[in-house]
């Protein structure tokens, strides 16, 4: 942990410049959660980076467009205790909005207030799914002909794929948590367009398991995505397993 924090301190200036990749970003954010001195140092670097900004009058029509949207948009009222003012704020939403640009801004208010419900619904759905999958998983685990493939996960941990029949049971051990506002998402890769294959559930006992139906004989990959997953990967895979 001390080593990881040492590395995170090293990355702090690059983080303030948005010059880190997603895994490094999370490494730094763990440090920021744990260490007020790091937050203070980040605040200083942020001020340095902001001093590059040269104010410039935006196109006039923007004012009306923004104020109109503001009038129709509820505020997020709660402050996260101890959270940095400008750290992860909007990180998830900006990432998930990548693909849709300004169109998604209109829905942003809805997203902001609907998060707890969405999470609850998702958990419920995952539980139902898990019950349905439990039989299949038990079958797979008991299959004497099942194959095991393992691969290291970039950023820590190891993923194991148990291949039985058409399906793949992916277990990830020691993988870092995806971080607030993010999920690990599975993909079946065949040809050029990866197919979404569900989210990795939260780890229990350090291990997270997910059933990828129809994944056998293909490549199974995991990427970091905005909470709830994406229709197509927005980051590079942390692990790919050829099953």
């Amino acid at each position, binding site marked *: 942990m001390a080593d990881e924090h040492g590395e995170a301190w090293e990355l702090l200036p*690059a983080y303030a*410049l948005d010059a880190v990749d997603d895994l490094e970003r999370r490494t730094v954010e763990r440090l920021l959660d744990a260490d007020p001195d790091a937050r203070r140092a980040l605040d200083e670097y942020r001020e340095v980076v902001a001093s590059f*900004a040269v104010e410039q009058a935006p196109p006039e029509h923007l*004012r009306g467009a923004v104020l109109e949207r503001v009038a129709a*948009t*509820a505020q997020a009222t709660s402050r996260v205790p101890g959270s940095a003012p400008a750290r992860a704020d909007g990180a998830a939403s900006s990432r998930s909005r990548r693909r849709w640009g300004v169109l998604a801004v209109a829905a942003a208010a809805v997203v902001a207030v609907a998060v707890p419900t969405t999470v609850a619904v998702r958990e419920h759905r995952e539980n139902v799914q898990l019950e349905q999958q439990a039989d299949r998983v038990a079958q797979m685990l008991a299959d004497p002909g099942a194959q095991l493939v393992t691969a290291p996960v970039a950023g820590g941990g190891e993923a194991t794929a148990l291949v039985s029949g058409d399906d793949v049971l992916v277990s990830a051990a020691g993988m870092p948590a995806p971080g607030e506002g993010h999920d690990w998402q599975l993909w079946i890769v065949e040809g050029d367009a990866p197919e979404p294959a569900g989210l990795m559930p939260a780890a229990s006992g350090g291990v997270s398991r997910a059933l990828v139906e129809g994944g056998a004989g293909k490549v199974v990959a995991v990427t970091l995505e905005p909470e709830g997953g994406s229709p197509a990967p927005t980051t590079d895979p942390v692990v790919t397993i050829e099953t």
Partner: protein
Amino acid sequence: MVGQTDEVPPPTTTPVDAALVACSGGDPATFGPVYDALAPVAYGTSLGVLRDPDHAAEVTQEVMVEVWQTAARFDPARASARTWVATLARRRAVDRVRSEQARRDRDQRDLDSSLGSAPRDVVAEDVERRLEGAAVRRCLDALTPTQREAVVEAYYGGRTYREVADRLGAALPTVKSRIRDGLGRLRDCLGVRRG
């Protein structure tokens, strides 16, 4: 403080900070002055990174709505409103550079890579022009040429330090320390001290 270009404002609460705090009460009518004071920061930041006025306007719109939505998270003890907005704008602008880059890479995967990679060259005189009026400008002279190059590539190119290292043909740890030492010197030159 808005419009002040010679030095970084001291970390005391300004009228703009106070206006931003006040608008977290949920009354959209209070947002007009906040927009007027801070939209130029968002637009200038976005334009510096994106260079395209249409993209910069879109990002500014997203950022200013985000400023309204998340006003309650602004903490004047930790950053000025200007810094807060510049940070949000830069994050979004860099996100856009990277997703555009990823899209181009996908579209061009099978084409001649010399066409596909469309390098975002950070040209020296272009940088000088973009820095015109920036508080940081006079302090860039305090950097070694290699520190300056690494910081400027990362800032205007929207690049990760890994990509900066690739472009400069330098080792990763070298670039990481150039960025760290570079920002450290700028911090000292600008007299930025918090807490």
